[in-house]
């Protein structure tokens, strides 16, 4: 974690109200992993007292370029859209814990709901670089909100669902998962919490029949890693990237917690944003 200067290189509205921005931030492009995020300071000091957390959408160590993808939801996100190439902002990062891919996983299933694509996008790059096959299931309200395939690596198999049926499968993206769960060694999802809860429900109770578990036990596989550890998450068929209103993003303020099955709230910024599906208490628990 460090405070890094980032210079805007490119900024464009790729979907209605959704922006893709590239920043030159070598300190963050090197050493960041898929699933991690940055906490960006707005330059509007007149009234905005909090930073804004953004998933690292992509990070290219060779060029030092990172990208973020966000929707304009208020004054803070609006402020970022007014930046011009050459403008510098201040990013705190990389923050949070990344997705954990089992070394045996060859088939990677990514599931994204709407802007959730920003949470799993970088994992596609990482997986392809590691020689894995990637399928992305993407859900949106309507065709106009569908993530452009031109922004994805060619190697990714891209399957779309829309709520209104204007493109691809007519229905929720979660309905596509049954067709791919047999193929997938591991699945990684980001999107609205109800979507993630449905996915967790699909997977629940079938841990020994899905994904990496069916590849057979490794040496020492009998040992159970403590819940929440990278080793335990690596064994999970489904990992989810959670979202929550955030204050400090370093674990100090305890603002961004989610309830876990252990009965203890965990910080999205520190223990997360990536969790194994069975760590989260989807019904709440307060």
């Amino acid at each position, binding site marked *: 974690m460090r405070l890094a200067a980032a210079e805007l290189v490119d900024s464009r509205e790729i979907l209605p109200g959704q922006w893709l921005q590239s920043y030159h931030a070598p300190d963050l492009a090197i050493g960041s992993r898929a699933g991690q995020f940055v906490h960006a300071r707005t330059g509007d000091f007149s009234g905005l007292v909090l930073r804004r957390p953004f998933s690292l959408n992509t990070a290219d160590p060779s060029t030092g370029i990172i990208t973020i993808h966000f929707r304009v939801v208020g004054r803070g996100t609006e402020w970022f859209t007014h930046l011009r190439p050459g403008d510098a902002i201040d990013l705190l990062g990389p923050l949070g814990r990344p997705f954990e891919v089992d070394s045996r996983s060859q088939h990677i299933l990514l599931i994204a709901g709407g802007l959730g694509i920003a949470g799993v996008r970088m994992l596609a790059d990482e997986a392809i670089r590691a020689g894995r096959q990637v399928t992305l299931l993407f859900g949106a309200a309507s065709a106009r909100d569908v993530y452009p395939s031109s922004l994805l690596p060619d190697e990714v198999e891209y399957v779309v669902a829309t709520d209104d049926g204007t493109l691809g499968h007519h229905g929720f993206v979660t309905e596509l998962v049954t067709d791919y769960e047999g193929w997938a060694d591991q699945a990684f999802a980001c999107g609205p919490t109800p979507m993630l809860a449905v996915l967790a429900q699909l997977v629940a109770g079938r841990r020994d029949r899905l994904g990496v578990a069916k590849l057979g036990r490794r040496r020492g596989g009998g040992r159970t890693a403590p819940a929440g550890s990278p080793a335990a998450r690596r064994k999970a068929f489904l990992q989810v990237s959670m979202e929550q209103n955030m*204050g400090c993003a370093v674990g*100090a303020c305890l603002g*961004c917690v989610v309830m876990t099955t252990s009965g203890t709230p965990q910080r999205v910024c520190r223990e997360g944003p990536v969790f194994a599906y069975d760590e989260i208490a989807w019904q709440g628990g*307060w």
Partner: protein
Amino acid sequence: MTATGRPAAARRTPAAAERPRSGGSGPPVQGLSGRPAALRPVARDTPATVEIAPSQVDLSVDLGRGLVLPNPILVASGTFGYGIEYGDVVDVNRLGGICCKGTTLRARIGNPPPRVTETPGGMLNSIGLQNPGVDAVIEKYARTWATWRAPVLVNVAGESVRDYVEVARRLDGVPGVAGIELNISCPNVGAGGLQFAIDAGAAGEVTAAVRRATDLPLLVKLSPNVADIRPIARAIADAGADALTAINTLSGIALSPRRDRPLLGNIYGGLSGPAVKPVALRIVYEAVQTVKIPVIAIGGVTELSDVLDFLAVGAVAVQVGTAIFADPTVPIRLVDELAVVCARRGMTSYRDLIGTALPPGKGRPSAKGVEYRP
């Protein structure tokens, strides 16, 4: 606290150094009744005849009972965790002090999310005192705190006098714990937090009980959610507190984007940030004229002018809170900037900045703790 690397003797206030509250003489605390304008050091903006380097300015704050802060810029409870979270981004040894996350007798899971939201010029939070309990806090962090130069004040919350007393007892004598900041004002705990802070009798009672339980320096944090702070401040001071801190957050709510319910999981949250600064200024202004113990200000401190404002109304130190979220380097920058301003004005001590905006004839407010008299 000898483990901090400071000789214990240097941190003790010799009784002989005790000065009367007002009408006293000699620097650094100039208790001048009526303060003739010619003697007001703060008015001097022309360069001093003797050059003073920023590093030569005395920024130390003596809160009494042996607690000496290296400088008057602290970090506020709840915004800096247990001091370790910001890692290399903030050098904790340059801070004047650290008020840790609110600590209770038993572990608490806190309030359901969402817990934070931004508001105009500020933010609302309703963490609900999530913490692992005092024993776990001591076990996990005290050893680290003992190695720091910056004193750590453990912020203590509770739902009964007995809870407060028990937590204080367990903190007493723990290396690394430099003092206690009593949170009797956290507005997020329905079961009683607010009641102590809004009633002079209850505030005095809990302060006195904790005072009897520990010899640790005892700071008590005031709630702004009261009609008149003066009787409450007086009761806390009379009960033996070494200093006051003010203010805690203001109670408020925010709405969900669809306006179909309050946004925060707990409905109510505490407002902090620049939006509360005028309220904090008013309460510090009133408190310093009511009590003889030092007052530490909290409320929207973001830049040096905020620090100077709070010193001018009589605070001896400030805590930086919400501003840390936007820029974690703010507190240390304020330490440097304060020293530069003092040096530029020819001041050998920042204490000359204290109380300049108070009504004349009152004498300077206390910039030093009362020596412990059992």
